[in-house]
């Protein structure tokens, strides 16, 4: 292991700080490490036409198989004890008094035969004594990311409302269940001492993007983060943000502040030729309400120091690394960690959640028995990460004559609650997206992320952009109203078009098709005929107001350091095996990745290993600092062919179809080029005179898969099984493993592939497997998990300056929404909506439209129904559930009427784009704009509840 490589560098090799680890998928058809396509007598999920008949995991899910982590018990786990304990947490409901202790007398006295006292009580003092603290120094995790204590020690004031103070463990379910029900809403169990000052952590972070473009969009920027500038970071003085000093001749930060000051002057000195419109907007805290509440099942074997766990997480590698880090500082010994992960769902909130570590803590105190910590909904509301509330002040400067946008200034404030988590990152991503689908010649977008006594906010579908783009989309409609311009016409004048720069100065990858979407929206009957429809509806429905609104947004996908591995190989019988890290979170990854292979090779794999984390065939190391590495250091380390900026990414940020899919598609193409094509040429060349291929000029580019056979150029189609047999017989390449890295651009590298020659691919590492007939000396090279690791001969990594780009990959959606406001009940009903999505090439159209429909429902919930108070009386008080937190139901989403269209790709080589986040966003401002059309009031906060309607109706 090279010097200076991190804990995570070790992790990738199946060993972290000397602890052997293994991660395996549990769920459904992927229950074993390597499983065959489900062998039920239900017809196969892939039809004879090569298309998915249904989801890969469909039968398991529709028949109630154990698929979620929550479904598993100790008795389901091979080699685990059958005796299992159950735990629940006691939560504090104050953050202004010192915690004194707990009084469990409500559960009876120890002498009582029918007491419900726990078999084990774990308090903060136990954890302090045993050195059990939340992970804090795992590489890449800032201090305080997971908070500083699991359980508040007696004498200390909780950091935030609802912070756990004790863990109660029961060795039988019946008593656990009865005890939990008895004290669930009992506010006397937790005892409080003296009133104290708040114990809130320090505020979390700030960021600012300033850009002054040239005279024309493609002129060089006067100032931008990407073009010689930087992202600006301020500091906190108490609750005040202090930004650095401005200096035109100073460093990049000082010049940014100089540029910001110029924009302030321009706004202040604006003349009558421009409209200066300033609006406030508040986007509320919500609970993502993943239906599977947080849970974990953990067995810590005291004798051997082995930890076994079943956890629902979107970030298993991080969970492993951080758990080991946690043990390092404790009195507990860890020799081995087997993590089993079920299918899960979190909409982002199970990415880097602290919950799995609470489950580990429960396991530590199980006295050798497996312990299950499975939250109910009330508890989940208390603990699950929330969507960040944003308070936003936006100023738009518009030329009154031309309608051209001149300046966007956004000053945003977010509340991250009592643990840091990803608060600064979510805040900054939201800020980077505030421009929505417009080109702004000048912009100054800043954010400050505050700590508070609220339940923590974290990664949630949309990642800050639901909030900022909603503010911008509502502001644009307000400007259109002020200027007397049709909202779509104003959008058209200012669209972000291909080749233009974003507010960080980066040019997005590929074509921006904003105008096509806008054209379709403008021509749609819901929009085109809205005035007549309003008049007709209101004439026929006295007391009801009709409105139509539109919004269009674009959302980045990916995290700016996306790393993936896919391994594809076949045996001599032609059975195709795929290994990759992708996990199923409901989005259909296991279906879509298989279909990507089919698109290249004409068939889905026969064997799958999803959720893999150990890739001995890809022996790479990483220092895992892709965001902060210097160009010089990257250049130096890149000379080592075993080095990569990052090994594997978590499942997040809508990254599966494009980024992980890139590894899958590239591996399939590489297998075609390096294996099947040479095998085909060998077969076509048989016979006198060089065989049937000799008279022709056929190249790899001519090859097509037709009816599951390799064909093209007029040559005899060859079945893949025969090609596999030939490749094995001749010792050709029969398997490939690729590692990919993307920092808003793909790494590319060259390799000298034995038997093929120099090959350049959009990957940074390649291993190959040779067939059974390969000579012994060639087989001897297959030392990396049965593969031959081919050191790259050259590599081109994306430059580190791209870390300032913010984002370069966008997916776009426009949504027209029709609402009816009942002036008697003050309810807003969404009665119809139409969405237009551009997401590149679709892999499985049914999954795409399902995501779209689901995202729209979630957006409708945000706009109209869902809301959490932040502090006292909020979710931390333990009384929140779906009876009072209103989720959208079918009747709320125009279930029979809603329609959508998806732009066809520009070519059949357009890659698919991540689209699971963007689809929920446009509908939020579209509803606000529709309500404005209906009643003449443009709301500056969500949700638009009957109470808020009542306040503004005359």
């Amino acid at each position: 292991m090279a010097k200076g490589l991190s804990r995570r560098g070790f992790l990738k090799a199946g060993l972290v700080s000397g602890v052997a680890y293994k991660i395996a998928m549990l769920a459904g058809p992927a229950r074993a490490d390597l499983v065959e396509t489900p062998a039920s007598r239900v017809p196969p999920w892939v039809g004879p036409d090569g298309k998915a008949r249904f989801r890969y995991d469909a039968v398991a899910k529709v028949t109630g198989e154990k698929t979620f982590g929550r479904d598993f018990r100790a008795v389901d786990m091979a080699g685990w004890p059958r005796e299992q304990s159950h735990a629940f947490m006691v939560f504090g409901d104050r953050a202004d008094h010192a915690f004194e202790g707990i009084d469990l007398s409500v559960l009876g006295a120890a002498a009582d035969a029918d007491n419900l006292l726990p078999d084990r009580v774990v308090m903060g003092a136990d954890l302090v004594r045993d050195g059990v603290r939340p992970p804090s120094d795992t590489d890449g995790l800032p201090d305080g990311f997971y908070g500083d204590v699991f359980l508040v020690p007696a004498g200390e004031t909780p950091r935030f409302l609802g912070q756990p103070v004790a863990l109660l463990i029961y060795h039988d379910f019946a008593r656990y269940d009865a005890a939990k029900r008895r004290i669930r809403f009992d506010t006397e169990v937790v005892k409080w001492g003296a009133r104290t000052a708040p114990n809130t952590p320090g505020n979390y972070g700030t960021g600012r993007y300033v850009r002054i473009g040239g005279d024309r969009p493609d002129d060089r920027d006067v100032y931008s983060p990407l073009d010689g500038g930087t992202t600006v970071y301020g500091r906190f003085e108490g609750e005040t943000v202090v930004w650095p000093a401005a200096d035109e001749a100073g460093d990049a930060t000082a010049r940014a502040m100089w540029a910001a000051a110029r924009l302030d002057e321009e706004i202040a000195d604006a003349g009558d030729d421009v409209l200066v419109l300033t609006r406030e907007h508040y986007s509320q805290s919500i609970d993502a309400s993943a239906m599977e509440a947080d849970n974990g099942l953990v067995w810590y074997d005291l004798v051997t120091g082995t930890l076994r766990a079943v956890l629902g997480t979107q970030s298993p590698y991080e969970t492993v690394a951080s758990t080991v880090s946690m043990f390092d500082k404790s009195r507990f010994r860890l020799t081995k960690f087997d993590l089993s992960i079920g299918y899960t769902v979190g909409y982002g909130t199970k990415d880097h959640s602290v919950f799995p570590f609470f489950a580990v803590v429960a396991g530590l105190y199980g006295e050798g028995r497996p312990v299950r910590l499975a939250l109910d909904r009330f508890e989940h509301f208390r603990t699950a990460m929330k969507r960040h509330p944003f308070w936003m002040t936006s100023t738009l400067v518009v030329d009154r004559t031309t309608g051209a946008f001149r300046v966007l200034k956004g000053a945003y404030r977010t509340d991250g609650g009592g643990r840091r988590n990803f608060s600064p990152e979510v805040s900054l991503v939201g800020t980077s997206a505030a421009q929505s689908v417009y080109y702004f010649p000048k912009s100054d977008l800043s954010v400050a992320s505050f700590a508070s006594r609220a339940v923590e906010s974290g990664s949630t579908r949309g990642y800050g952009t639901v909030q900022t783009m909603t503010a911008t989309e509502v502001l644009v409609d307000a400007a259109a109203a002020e200027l007397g311009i049709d909202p779509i016409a104003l959008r058209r004048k200012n669209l972000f078009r291909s080749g233009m720069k974003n507010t960080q100065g980066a040019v997005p990858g590929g074509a921006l098709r904003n105008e096509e979407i806008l054209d379709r929206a403008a021509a749609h009957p819901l929009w085109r005929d809205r005035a007549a429809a309003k008049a007709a509806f209101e004439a026929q429905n006295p007391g009801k107001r009709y409105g139509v609104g539109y919004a269009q947004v674009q959302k980045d996908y990916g995290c700016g350091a996306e790393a993936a591995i896919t391994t594809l190989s076949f045996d001599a019988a032609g059975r195709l095996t795929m290994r990759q890290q992708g996990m199923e979170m409901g989005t259909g990854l296991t279906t879509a990745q298989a279909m990507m292979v089919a698109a290249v090779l004409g068939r889905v794999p026969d064997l799958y290993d999803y959720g893999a984390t150990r890739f001995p065939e890809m022996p790479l190391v990483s220092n895992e600092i892709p965001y902060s590495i210097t160009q010089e250091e990257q250049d130096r380390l890149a000379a080592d062919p075993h080095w990569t900026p990052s090994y594997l990414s978590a499942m997040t940020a809508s990254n599966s179809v494009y980024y992980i899919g890139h590894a899958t598609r590239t591996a399939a193409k590489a297998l075609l080029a390096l294996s099947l094509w040479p095998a085909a040429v060998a077969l076509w060349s048989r016979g006198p005179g060089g065989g049937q291929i000799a008279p022709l000029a056929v190249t790899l580019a001519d090859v097509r898969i037709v009816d599951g056979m390799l064909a093209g150029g007029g040559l005899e189609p060859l079945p893949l099984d025969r090609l596999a047999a030939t490749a094995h017989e001749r010792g050709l390449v029969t398997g490939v493993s690729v590692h990919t890295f993307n920092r808003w651009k793909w790494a590319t590298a060259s390799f000298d592939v034995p038997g093929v020659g120099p090959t350049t691919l959009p990957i940074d590492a390649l291993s190959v497997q040779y067939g059974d007939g390969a000579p012994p000396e060639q087989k001897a090279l297959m030392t990396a998990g049965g593969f031959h690791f081919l050191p790259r001969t050259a590599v081109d990594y994306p430059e580190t300056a791209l870390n300032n780009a913010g984002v370069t990959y966008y997916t776009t959606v426009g949504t027209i929404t029709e609402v009816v406001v009942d002036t008697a009940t003050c309810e807003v009903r969404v009665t119809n909506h139409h969405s237009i999505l551009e997401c590149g090439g679709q892999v499985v159209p049914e999954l795409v439209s399902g995501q779209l429909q689901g995202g729209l429902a979630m957006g409708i919930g945000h706009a109209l129904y869902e809301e959490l108070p932040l502090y006292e009386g909020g979710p931390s008080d333990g009384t929140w559930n779906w009876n009072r937190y209103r989720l959208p139901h079918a009747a709320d989403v125009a279930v029979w009427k809603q329609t959508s269209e998806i732009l066809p790709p520009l070519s059949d080589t357009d890659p698919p784009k991540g689209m699971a986040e963007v689809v929920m966003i446009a509908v939020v401002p579209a509803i606000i704009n529709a309500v404005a059309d209906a009643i003449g009031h443009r709301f500056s906060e969500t949700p638009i509840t009957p109470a808020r309607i009542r306040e503004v109706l005359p």
Partner: protein
Amino acid sequence: MTIATRPLSLVVNGRQVGPLDVPENLMMVDFLHEYLNLTGSRLACGQGVCWACTVMLLDTDGAPPREIRTCITGAHFFQGRHVRTVEGHAERDADGAVVALSPVQQAFIEHFSFQCGYCTPGFVTGATVLIEQLKRQPVARADVETTIEAALSPHVCRCTGYVRYYEAVRSVILDTPGLVVG
């Protein structure tokens, strides 16, 4: 320590269960999960508002089966009763392998009705109960959509936005002879 228990016997998915000593206050969903290891009926809200945990009550004296929320119904309510959980809808062979899905299950998978699948067992139950009701009391073709809305409206799905569930149920109703009139 002891918790008051009572013997409980019932039929689950055609199989006689019990008598088992079951706490008097235990909810059915916990009985299914912790005593029978049938975890397909999902606990999500625990207060009867999301309907992810429902099962079919079959012994209804000739009336259509009923959909029961197991998170708010005590296990002992089912003493002597016949219930079908989501695990009991598909036809299975002697080894428990699925031989054929029920029409509702088949429609859900073909319509890509679910994503995470946590709510799916409740939708399978609710839709199947509806189909059974319609076998006894068909509805006018024009009322199919409102009938589905009325039957399934309490069910919460957080991933897929309901459209594909509702379309799947509509297709089953329209494709099954005798469920609609007119």
